[in-house]
C-alpha cells in the first residue's frame, strides 16, 4: 500500500499474510491501518457484521484479530512485522 509514498521516503516495505494471502506495507504501519486500507474486516460481530477500527487507540476492541496465533489482539497496537500472520476473527 502507498508505494509511491514509501518510495519517496525510502521506507522499506514489510510483507505479511492475512488469511493466507500476502500483502506489503511500509515499515511502521500498524496492522489495523494495513487491514483497513486493504478493506479487510478485522472481525465478524456477534450478529455477523464485518467490523473495522473505530477508535484507533486501543479502547473499542473493534480491530481485534488473531496475530501469530494469539487471539483477540488489538491490531491498532501492533506494528506489522516481516512474516506476521494474521487471521481475521
Amino acid at each position, binding site marked *: *500500500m*502507498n508505494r509511491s*509514498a514509501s518510495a519517496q521516503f525510502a521506507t522499506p516495505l514489510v510483507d505479511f499474510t492475512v488469511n493466507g494471502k500476502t500483502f506489503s*506495507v*511500509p515499515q*511502521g*504501519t*500498524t496492522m*489495523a*491501518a*494495513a487491514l*483497513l*486500507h486493504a*478493506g479487510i*474486516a478485522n472481525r465478524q*460481530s*456477534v*450478529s455477523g*457484521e*464485518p*467490523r*473495522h*477500527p*473505530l*477508535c*484507533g*487507540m*486501543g*479502547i*473499542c*476492541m*473493534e480491530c*481485534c484479530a488473531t496475530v501469530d496465533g*494469539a487471539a*483477540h489482539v488489538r491490531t*491498532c*497496537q501492533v*506494528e506489522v512485522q516481516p512474516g506476521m500472520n494474521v487471521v481475521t476473527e
Partner: protein
Amino acid sequence: MTSFDVVVAGTGPAGMAAATAASANGASVCIVDDTAHCGGQIWRGQGSDSATHPTDRRFVQLQSALESGRIIVRYGNRVVANPAPRVLRLESTSGSEDIRFHSLIVATGARERFLPFPGWTLQGVMGAGGIQAMVKQGLPIEGKRVVLSGSGPLLLAVSAYLIREGARILGIFEQASTAQIARFGFQLLRHPGKLRDGALYRAATRSAPYRTASWVTRARGQDRLQSITVRVRDEISTIECDYLGCGFHLVPNLELPHLLQCQIEAGFVHVDDRQQTSVEDVYCVGEPTGIGGLEKALCEGEIAGLVCTGQSAAHLLNRRDRYLRFARELDRTFAPRPELNEVATPDTLVCRCEDVSRQALGSMHSWREAKLHTRCGMGPCQGRICGPATEFLLGWNSEHSRPPVLPARLSTLAGTVDPL
C-alpha cells in the same frame, strides 16, 4: 516484586511531566503504558525533528527524560488489577507482573465520546481522533474525501492535520450552536495560547466548510462507507465521501480511578489542590480531572510529581486553575445537544461488542439491568464505548469498574501477590 517511590499510569503529556518531575527530585519512578510509545494520543507519532511549537519542544525534553535511564519505563503493559493495597498488576504479551508503589499518579487520559447513528459500524466510519490515529499509523489519506462531525476543538485539529496529509475535507459539522461557539471564542480571549492555537487551526482549515448547529444523521454504503446524510440547521443534504470521523468531544478514562475507589464528581476524578484524589497517596492528573488539553495536563502532571516527592508546587497553582476554568468552558460549549438523542433509530446498534440495538434497551431501566438482560456493555470493550452513549441516550450511570479493567489472561488473574 519491584517497589517504586512513584508509579505513573499513562505516558501521555500528564504522565510524562509527572514522572519527570518526580524523578528530578530523586524518587525512584516507574511509568507504565499500554502502547509502545510515549506521548499519548496528542503527541502520537511526534518526531524530535518537528519541535518548533513550544509544546513540541516540551515533548522532546520529556521524552529524553524518559529515555535517560533514570525512569523505569514499561511500554506495552496494561494495568489490569489492584490485587493488594499499593500494588498494581500489569500484563504484557510476555506475561504479568506486580509492582508496588508508595505514591501512584493516574494519568490515563481521555477517549472520544461516540453517539450511535445509523451506519456507524460501516467500514470507513471512525472517531475524529480515530481517523487521525489511523493516518498516523500508516493509513494512506492523500486525495481521500473526508467528512468530520461531532463536537469540540478536536474536529479542527484533526482537519488541519488531515489537510496537511493531503486529504480533501468536504465539511466539518459541529453540533454546538453558532451562539455557543461565539461565546466560547469570546472566553478564549482570557486564554491567549488557546486563542492562537484556534486561529492557527482555523487558518489551516480555511478550505473546509465549517458548519455549526449541524450533525450527521446517517452513513450509507455497500460493504464500506459511500455517503453520509447531514443536517445543517433544518436542511438535510447528502455528501459522498470515503471516510467519516465522528466524535462528540472527549470523556475521561476513569476505569483505573474507579478500580482504586477514587471519588468521582460530576464525571471527573475529584482532586484537591495538590492533585491528590480521595485515596491517600493516589494522585490524578490530566484529562481525568477535567478535559482541558495539553497545557493543563503538563501543569497538573508537574504539580503531582513535585508534591509526591515533598516539593512545593505553589508557583503552578494559578496556572492550573486557569486551565481548569478553560476545561469547564469546553465542557459547557461542546456538551451534546438533546436533539442528538433522536439520531439513533430503533435498530441502530448501541453496543457494538454485543450488537445490542437501541430498541433492545428500550424496556431497560438501568445500566445494570441492561447488562444482565441484553449483554450491553458486557463485551471486550467493557462498556467503554456504549457506556457514555447510554449515559447520554438513556440517562444511565455506567460508571463502574471491577477487575480486570481490560480483558486479561487467566494466568494473570490467578497470580498471587508476593509478600514484600
